[in-house]
């Protein structure tokens, strides 16, 4: 009975440490654009800066826009796919990729899900809401 218990405990400990080790390696930390310049692959959280130009180019087949990170740095972001479906509605964007020459090349982009539980942050008063 004793050795079996030992093997059991040992394998549970081994499994859990392996899992946690792998888990620790597969997560990373969110950074801002300035920190991203020194890294090869980064996650940056921010908001779409809709005052600057954005759009899809038919020549390069890329979507480019400006994003303001949580510390207020604004950079151009290039995304090699069409504009995602819920881009404008996203209250938050996460771009995953790397920074080169002050331009962020996103391999992936995540938008806050268009969930029913989302709070709608823009409240329009009636004078304009009816228009």
């Amino acid at each position: 009975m004793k050795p079996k218990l030992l093997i059991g405990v040992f394998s549970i400990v081994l499994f859990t440490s392996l899992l946690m080790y792998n888990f620790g390696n597969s997560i990373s930390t969110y950074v801002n654009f300035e920190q991203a310049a020194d890294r090869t692959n980064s996650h940056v959280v921010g908001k779409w800066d809709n005052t600057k130009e954005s759009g899809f180019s038919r020549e390069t087949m890329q979507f480019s826009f400006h994003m303001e990170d949580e510390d207020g740095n604004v950079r151009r972001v290039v995304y090699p796919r069409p504009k995602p479906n819920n881009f404008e509605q996203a209250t938050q964007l996460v771009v995953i990729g790397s920074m080169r020459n002050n331009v962020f090349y996103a391999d992936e982009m995540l938008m806050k899900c268009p969930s029913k539980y989302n709070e709608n942050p823009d409240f329009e008063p009636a004078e304009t809401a009816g228009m």
Partner: protein
Amino acid sequence: MIAQIGNLFLSGALAVSIAGLILYALSAIREDKKLETYANWIWMTKGLFVLISSGALIYLIMTHQFQYYYVWNYTSLDLETQYLFSAFYGGQEGSFMLWVLCGFLVGAGLIRWTRKPYRAPVMFVMMLTQVFLLSMVVGWDLGFTKIGASPFRTIAQEMPNAPFIQANPDFVPADGSGLNDLLKSPWMMIHPPIIFVGFAMMTVPFAFAISSLWTKTYHEWIRPALPWTLAANLSLLTAIFLGGYWAYETLSFGGYWAWDPVENASLVPWLIGTAGIHAMIIQRMSARAHKASLFFAILAYMAVIYQTFLTRSGVLAEQSVHSFVDLGLYGQLLLFILVITLLGIGFYLFRYKEIPSVDKESKILSKEFMTFTGSILLFILGFIIIIGTSSPILGRLFVDNPTPPEIQFYNDWSMPLAIIMAIATVIGQYLFWQKHTWESLAEKMIFPLIITSIATVISIVFGEVRNLYYMVFIFAGWFAVIGNGAVLLSLLRKNPKLVGGTVTHIGFGALLLGIIASSVYTEPLLDQQTTRYNARIAAGDVFDEEGFPVTQPVEMFELELNRPKLVNEKYMVTYEGFEVSDSPRPGQQTYRIKFEPIDGGRTFYMDPVVYPMMTTSSMNNIDWSVDVHVRTGWLSDIYLYVAGSQYVADRNEELENQRVRDELPEALAEEERQSIEIHQGETIEAGPFSFTFVQFTPASEEAVPENTQIGVRAQIRVEHRPSGNAYEVEPLFAVYTEDGRSYTYSPPLSIDRWNMDVYFSSIFPESDAIEITVEGLDEEFEEDWVLIVAERKPYVSVVWLGTFLLMAGFSISILRHWGREKAAQE
């Protein structure tokens, strides 16, 4: 008035629930039948109160009373009736009410059907969960703290500091902010009720487990609990399926599953519930595994509450893109999970020594051991997913401000587990119905193994599988289908009522096969030009404007009106135009894309849609959204959407010009110089003018520069259609060399009457087309193009088939266990 009634009844429901909780507790402790009857009446009263309150909320939504924040936030005047109704549970508060209602119905069923010794403690636990859920929506302000957020609060209560509220406290918005267009889908209407039915039913095994610990009767509780657990799992599975199907059909991320926290939130309780079902089945058959079935019954409900906590408390909001509205329920949700944990795990540990256990261990080759293995594997998978989903909390052990784990984390761990599970299902099923030694089992396995090997080889050859890991995975999937299929055949001959478990295991195998085929072997559909470009990218030959190598392949291609392109050397694809209509959404365009298989298959059309998002578009800006068109087939799906089009670009440009004109009224239009590609014989229109490329004509020697290699003229007919006036011009295009370098020469030809210059600016020998450039044209060439993103996804149908088989298996088992439970009562 209606809102006050609704609010009052909600508060009343919570108040009577607390009274009912005390009564059920007393009744359970004193075993007092009379108290229990009173408490049952309270249960019904509470249900009635919540129904009245829900009716009030639905009334407010239906009558568009936008002074209420909930009504304003989730509905608008133009919303169709069915979506107005579903807006009742569209928000966080309403979804809690729906959960309470589902719990009430389940409780009513329990009052009717539960056996005597368990009824009071079971109902006590049910009432406890209802008290917590109701407390999320009562909106009591106790001065020092607030309890819950009422769906009946007004905008003035929601945002008292907003300037328009300070100016006019009785302010009522003219229209609501409306429902997100992506959620206007029948799938999304039925998804929440099904998931909350599942959550509510998952409370039942938990309640029975607690009652069993309370009454110290460890054997009998699983008999009534088993059908409820099966039903809860069926609901969750259906809800997961609907969510996945909606994501596949509506969102353009290209799949049905993305390991995202919200999806995981319903998957983990399902996995642990299924682990519980396995343990309960052992306990029912062999009177062992009491500890495991209690543990999993408790854990499954804890998983429900924990995932609710993760997704609704705002914990994920900081870290993940999947943020949910933070109603300030963090404390309450935390208390909920703590109480459930303490009650469940605490009670379990307290009684642990008394729970019967069998000293003699099972042999490895026994149904008990194998079923228990299944249970543990499911639990491990659930545990891994919980670890991943908890990254906002657990990740802090490693880094500050952690991101969610990469998708790879989930795939790396779930794939080997799935392989082991698939093989274990077959051995388990063989042992389940018959005792075996290693020899007799091996003998039984020969035939299924042969068939499996043949099927695997065929899949590998035809699917061009090169990866050894995937080969093993495919083998495991086929083995689960074929091995369990053999068991199914022999069961059908003996007793078809018993096939539930076998059918679910076949479904599991099919699911694995469908998942690997549709996710790993999805191929993008691309034209030849893009394919060549991607090959250059792969070779590292493409550089961007700043000189860096481009690494991302292009995953879309452009189609021009009526110009077919060969795609994946399989289809001739032609864009045949679009229609704009105002139904069901104003300004939506339906594009028509023709697919002609070149091997002679049947021609078919894809009709993707692009539409303006009504909830977020304004006069100055249109947010465009797409409806993916999925053509489902037995062998493969074609998944296609329009990522951009001339029409959309024009609308955006009009708005942009409008804005520029508004800002700079005196801005002058620049001299326009435009180019267009035109094929021989083709006519292209620009406003009132049309340009036809009639033919090439030879250029005389005098007209071209010295050392000319190519010199050719194009005969172009320019017509002003309203007047019928037409000119034919023959501009020249020449390539000549000077000092060893090549130059092009294309002098303009003027049409003085229209003040227009025409150039022959380039030539495309491979496509028999030329480029003409025109100066002095106010209108733009009416090009018509679309950008297409398309994929071929093999065997998505098998994913759905596997899911349906799982559902069917669960349903058969529910009927069987429920039937037996009813028979035992009578």
